């Protein structure tokens, strides 16, 4: 624990879910050491997978450990749209604005200056076809049953 407390930042070897879970707990910049394109393989303890888009373009270290692709319906990478109202999303007033969460997270760890960085468009060629078509672990099991 002391090692984590004394660290400037933490490198997380997991899918985007693990990076987000770690960020939420330790209050430091968490760098994704992997660039998740599928949940295939050993799964962690996080319930559900909706918070990681398995897009191979992980930018969680720029966004306070909150994924703008899953937290924002418009998948905005460079900041909030103008549609939010009282911190809630234009698409669903029950839902928190993803960028409001990102801002508050970066503020909490004193890293708001990260927001000034321009994030270029994501590279969709990394995730086409979709991750569900690439879950090789399950596919391999299917194959085995047939044989």
């Amino acid at each position, binding site marked *: 624990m002391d090692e984590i407390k004394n660290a400037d930042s933490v490198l997380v070897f997991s899918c985007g879910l693990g990076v987000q879970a770690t960020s939420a707990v330790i209050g430091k910049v968490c760098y994704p050491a992997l660039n998740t394109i599928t949940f295939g393989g050993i799964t962690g303890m996080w319930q559900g997978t909706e918070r990681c888009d398995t897009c191979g373009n992980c930018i969680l270290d720029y966004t306070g450990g909150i994924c703008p692709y899953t937290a924002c319906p*418009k998948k*905005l990478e*460079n*900041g909030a749209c*103008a549609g939010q*109202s*009282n911190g809630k999303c234009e698409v669903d007033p029950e839902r928190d604005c993803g960028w409001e969460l990102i*801002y508050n997270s970066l503020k909490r760890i004193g890293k708001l200056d990260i927001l000034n960085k321009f994030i270029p*468009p994501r590279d969709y060629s990394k995730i086409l076809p979709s991750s569900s078509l690439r879950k090789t672990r399950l596919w391999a099991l299917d194959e085995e049953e047939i044989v």
Partner: protein
Amino acid sequence: MESIKKLKFEKNLRSGKFAVTCEIGPPKGAEVEGIREAAEYLKDVADGINVTDLQSSVMRLGSLTTCHLLKEWGLDPILQVTCRDRNRLALQSDLLNAYVMGIRNVLALTGDYTTIGDHPQAEPVFDIDSVQLLWVIKNLEEGKDLAGKELTKKPSFFKGAVVNPGADTEASYELQIIKMKKKIDQGAQFFQTLAGIILLKSEKMANYMNKFIPGVFVPELIVKKMEGTGDKVSMCIEIASRLIEEVKPYCAGVHIQALGWEKYIPAVVKNLK
């Protein structure tokens, strides 16, 4: 075609003149008589005409074609481009289309979400965001597309972006400012507020906007004023003129949204000239 009032908007804004921009929402269908009439009222009072891009995610005539018509009719259109309906291929191509048609003013926006409009079943695209769209335009102006491929001729635009001054939380306010700076870094040359001076037709309209239009808020005081008058048109002109007088010291111009009441805009801006 090239000779008529070319770049009136950019020229006037750069000269320091208090600029007036108005808005034309393309029609739902192929009838363009309505916008031709609106254009007639706006021709002499507006420096630039914003043309909305499937505003509020409602399917209608396109921004590009409407801009082309306005140009033919002697106005200087501002092409609004949102990221909701087109991916990076289509956006770049439309920017080239605009340049070839002689359209020079471009306003880069994110766009409303699809579910608030009349085709909630549609796939929302949002392949790139508004800051990246400005970056894309910068690339095109430098003669390269997003894939790094050379263009045969470099287009050139007067590039604008929007900012929402009505942000209501610390985070949303700060994010608007941060994003505004990013937009400047990526080449934005002018800014317009997301909602401008909207000509308020009735208290009912105010209540509707407060409830349904993201980022728009009409204060109670103004709603009451509208409620208490028998002459909605005069009150509308009075409210809009007062607002413009009050914001004038703080900005380079105003954006007026008439929403069908274009014929009253000359009265609203009468005292400005």
